[in-house]
């Protein structure tokens, strides 16, 4: 279970990802207009959730 981190505006969860995979993400970030690796990962999660018919946009905090 990912570790929870409390931040001022929203609650964040700390997730472990293999470094080699994040290196690939870093390469794609600049090329495809993402602001950061986190932005890319969030977008990837949303896409897959959408594919399984589960994504609900909740707030701007995401």
């Amino acid at each position, binding site marked *: 279970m990912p570790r929870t981190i409390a931040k001022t505006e929203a609650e964040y969860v700390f*997730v472990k990802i293999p470094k080699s995979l994040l290196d690939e993400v870093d390469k794609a970030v600049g090329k495809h207009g993402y602001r950061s690796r986190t932005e890319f990962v969030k977008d990837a999660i949303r896409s897959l959730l959408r594919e399984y018919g589960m994504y609900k946009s909740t707030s701007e905090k995401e």
Partner: protein
Amino acid sequence: MKEGSVMEMCLLAEEQFKKQLLEFIEDREEPFDVEFLVRRCLQPVSEIKIHDALCELVEEGRIIRLDDRHYMSTRVLMKRWLKQKIRKIGGNVSFDGLELPRNLIDQVMRLLKEKPGLGYVDAEDFIRDAIRRSLRHLH
């Protein structure tokens, strides 16, 4: 009874026997031989019949012939190979941390709970798959 239907019945019985034999040996951890199977059969079955069934299972790729006497199920060999592979891979992987919004992770957790058939082990497994798919999509 027609000759054709007798043949069909014999073939069905052989298939049934092969299926039962396979069920018996699939999870057997140690290599086995024909004598072991003869000893373990509840009903008397000839050694030749067991040997023929084993040969067919080898041809179908369901079991592996290790040497003249010993066989092993492909399922057990595959499990052993996977265990070794996972141990090797796991030993070399280094991780990095990422902070993600809890509400997004909650949606992932809900999906895993509602659809366990998707095969994800945990939220991190889902996230890794999501990243890989996105990367593939971009390339």
